[in-house]
């Protein structure tokens, strides 16, 4: 092994707040922390502006009432809770609904150019599960607009950004009063392979999700659950990990694009789902829970787009979990499309001009990648792993985890979305809780000014040893790419949309085996921009998070939202006020416990009568 590969030199940086992740939540948190006067750094695995937020298409849900003046935060709150099958943390859902409009207007102040209404206000579009047209959008590239706006704001404020830099471990020390607290983080520059140490009292995790553990996913390579895993290792808890959202509409053909997202706006703007017999099958899958607010005839559903007061929503716009399950059933019943999906048709329902104006990226994506003209023919789509509702258990108002100095916001935080997230609620979640976490982190850091934490050298040495382990394997060793592929295939098969006890047990067994193999991961080449090495390090996080999902999914013996059990197909009321909480045990494996769901106050409960 060459000297360069073993070098344990590192650079040290001192900040008040270090934000890990530069998607919507991370950038918003960093801006808030900076505005609160904290010395702030953003650390991200990719280049700035490439985070997964750019993939968000439809819009930002915010009850601004620009299109339907009856809309307001209580309606949005209610929609969110019902979409989450009442398993959301009520306080998060409330804050989210109340603050989202201001966060959207703030983006405009920073330069975002949203589509407009005829009055010149921000236009809002329909989306699944939302009572009113509520999503502020820019065509079908809202995420790009959001990340670019936040990125430009962060750059204008002069916030330090560590691009292509991966954080692998969090450090803790013990405060004078004996409580353990965050003291910093360890990472490496992807471009050089050199190590760095951050000394900081506050860390905000904004690392996104875990989708890369599944075979068919809309998520990019970055989504390896780093934040989830690091939080666990630092002593924090995860909540709701059994709930993984499979977006109903991902591309299915050609194989190379399988899983790439097809925005829900296609349905929001009039697209419908059909099976191989040409039938609009969603009318057969309206659950009792949503019967009263869902159209029961095609005519009524079609009228709804223009007259929401007197008609009910078409079933294509049910929450994502319902639609994904319906599609899954149709495919299983043999009524799927040639490449194993079903048909999403907007061509026969809207004119070409309208489609190209409202859905330009979708038009482009299908044209370029699948040779399909969506203004002339239906798309073939199927469910794709999209989002994890579960994440770090946080205090709603501050985004603080149970570990002092550790905060989380965005997809890596749990509780906000309950058992299922509504479309459009993610971007607003990033803004609302990104800001709150950033502010709280800054406040905590200034309080910690009396006795700033210190990173103990032995922790750095240990983190370095872990990071360099794949270079030190003698003999054969395992290939990270092979292992990752195996993990993805097995997770898809055993812990996918429909789950059974037997398969989940098999998954747990499989994960133990993979964990064992992962200790022998070996990489070729040096430390300079070596994706094989990066993957080897990320894999440990993927395995730990997958273990959490399997464990929680096996425990919850009912079906609810993003968790469907074939052996327990019904929603069980006794599970309706139970959260599953995961922590890391002494043996390095996840430990599960049940915890009562926080109960909402009376005045909010009244909204559901």
């Amino acid at each position, binding site marked *: 092994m060459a000297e360069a590969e073993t070098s344990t030199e590192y650079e040290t940086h001192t900040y008040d707040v270090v934000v890990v992740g530069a998607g919507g939540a991370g950038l918003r948190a960093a801006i808030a922390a900076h505005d609160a006067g904290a010395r702030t750094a953003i650390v991200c695995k990719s280049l700035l502006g*490439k985070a997964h937020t750019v993939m968000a298409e439809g819009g930002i849900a915010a009850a601004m009432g620009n299109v339907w003046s009856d809309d307001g935060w209580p309606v949005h709150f209610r929609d969110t809770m019902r979409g989450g099958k009442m398993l959301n943390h009520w306080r998060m859902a409330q804050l989210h609904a109340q603050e989202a409009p201001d966060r959207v207007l703030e983006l405009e*102040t920073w330069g975002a150019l949203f589509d407009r209404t005829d009055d010149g206000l921000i236009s809002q579009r329909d989306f699944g599960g939302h009572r009113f047209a509520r999503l502020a959008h820019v065509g079908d590239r809202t995420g790009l607009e959001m990340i670019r706006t936040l990125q430009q704001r962060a750059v204008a404020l002069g916030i330090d950004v560590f691009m292509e830099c991966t954080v692998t471990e969090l450090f803790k020390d013990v405060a004078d009063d004996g409580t353990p607290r965050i003291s910093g983080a360890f990472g490496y520059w992807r471009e050089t392979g050199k190590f760095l140490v951050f000394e900081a009292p506050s860390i905000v995790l904004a690392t996104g999700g875990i989708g890369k553990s599944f075979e068919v996913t809309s998520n990019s390579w970055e989504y390896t659950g780093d934040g989830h895993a690091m939080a666990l290792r630092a002593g924090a808890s995860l909540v709701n990990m059994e709930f993984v959202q499979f977006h109903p509409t991902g591309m299915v053909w*050609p194989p190379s694009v399988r899983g790439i997202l097809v925005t829900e706006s296609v349905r929001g703007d009039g697209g419908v789902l059909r099976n191989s017999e040409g039938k609009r099958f969603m009318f057969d899958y309206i659950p009792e829970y949503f019967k009263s607010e869902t159209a029961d005839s095609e005519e009524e559903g079609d009228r709804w787009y223009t007259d929401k007061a007197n008609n009910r929503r078409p079933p294509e716009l049910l929450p994502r979990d319902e639609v994904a399950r319906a599609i899954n059933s149709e495919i299983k019943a043999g009524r799927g499309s040639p490449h194993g999906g079903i048909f999403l048709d907007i061509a026969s329902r809207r004119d070409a001009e309208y489609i190209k104006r409202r859905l330009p990226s979708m038009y482009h994506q299908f044209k370029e990648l699948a040779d399909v003209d969506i203004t002339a023919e239906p798309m073939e789509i199927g469910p794709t792993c999209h989002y994890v509702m579960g994440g770090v258990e946080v205090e709603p108002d501050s985004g603080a985890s149970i570990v002092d100095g550790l905060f989380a916001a965005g997809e890596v935080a749990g509780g906000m979305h309950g058992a299922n997230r509504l479309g459009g609620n993610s971007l607003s979640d990033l803004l609302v809780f990104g800001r709150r976490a950033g502010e709280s982190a800054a406040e905590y850091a200034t309080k910690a000014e009396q006795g700033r934490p210190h990173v103990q050298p032995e922790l750095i040495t240990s983190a370095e040893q872990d990071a360099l382990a794949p270079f030190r394997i003698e003999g054969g060793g395992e290939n990270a790419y092979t292992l990752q592929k195996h993990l993805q295939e097995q997770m898809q098969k055993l812990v996918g949309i429909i789950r059974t006890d037997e398969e989940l047990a098999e998954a747990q067994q499989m994960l133990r085996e993979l964990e064992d193999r992962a200790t022998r991961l070996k990489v070729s080449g040096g430390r*300079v921009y070596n994706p094989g090495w990066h993957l080897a390090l990320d894999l440990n996080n993927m395995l730990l998070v997958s273990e959490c999902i399997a464990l929680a999914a096996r425990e919850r013996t009912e079906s609810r939202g993003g968790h469907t059990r074939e052996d327990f197909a019904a929603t069980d009321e006794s599970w309706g006020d139970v959260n599953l909480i995961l922590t890391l045990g002494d043996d390095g494996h996840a430990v599960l416990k049940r915890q009562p769901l926080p109960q909402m106050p009376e005045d909010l409960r009244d909204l559901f009568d």
Partner: protein
Amino acid sequence: MGYDLSMRLWRGDAEGGGLEDFTVEVSEGEVVLDAIHRVQATQAGDLAVRWNCKAGKCGSCSAEINGRPRLLCMTRLNDFEETDTITVTPLRAFPVIRDLVTDVSYNYEKAREVPAFAPTPPDADGKRRMMQVDVERGQEFRKCIECFLCQDTCHVIRDHEENKPAFAGPRFFLRYAELDMHPLDTNDRRKLAQDAAGIGMCNITKCCTEVCPEGIKITDNAIIPMKERVVDRSFDPLVWLGSKIRRRDPSDERTEVV
């Protein structure tokens, strides 16, 4: 369905390197990035390549395919004959880090040089009003995914390293144009575009437009209009005279940033 594709991939770093031959099995509907990933997974685990979304939305996987700046994820293999050899090199306007990855920090430095958006105060109800026709021009430019292919192909810096300090490049002319056309911005950025950003160096040969994966009409809709705005300020005595004689609409009053 599947076939063996011959590829030549540039491997090396700032010290040196060259094209290496690979043969990799590919199948129908795949893109160049799929082939590279397969090389990575089966033959060269440390092959460096940047990518994220794999759907042409993030602009990470920029490289040069047979000498042309392209996104690896949006270049389909069936654009080539099965017998063709596909040659992939890193972007050639920027310093190489390793294999197909280059140091694009030039672009992030230029981004820092653009003064931030400075809007007028909101209306009494806290909202801002802009009409769709007024935001559409800017929206086209904001489709930019920052793949920097336009920066890579622009001969002003591709062929002249010495021009980099004085030239912002097409991606940032988009940004200047977007802000100068913004109905609510209070800055006048024309002088800045002329001096610090060096828009005069652009000779509108349109390569930026040719390579833009988002189909943004960079030259016709951003650079030339921006050049014309610079002409208004610096080369057209009639416009200057007109602005002195005629009292202008208050919304046209802007602060010049330099």
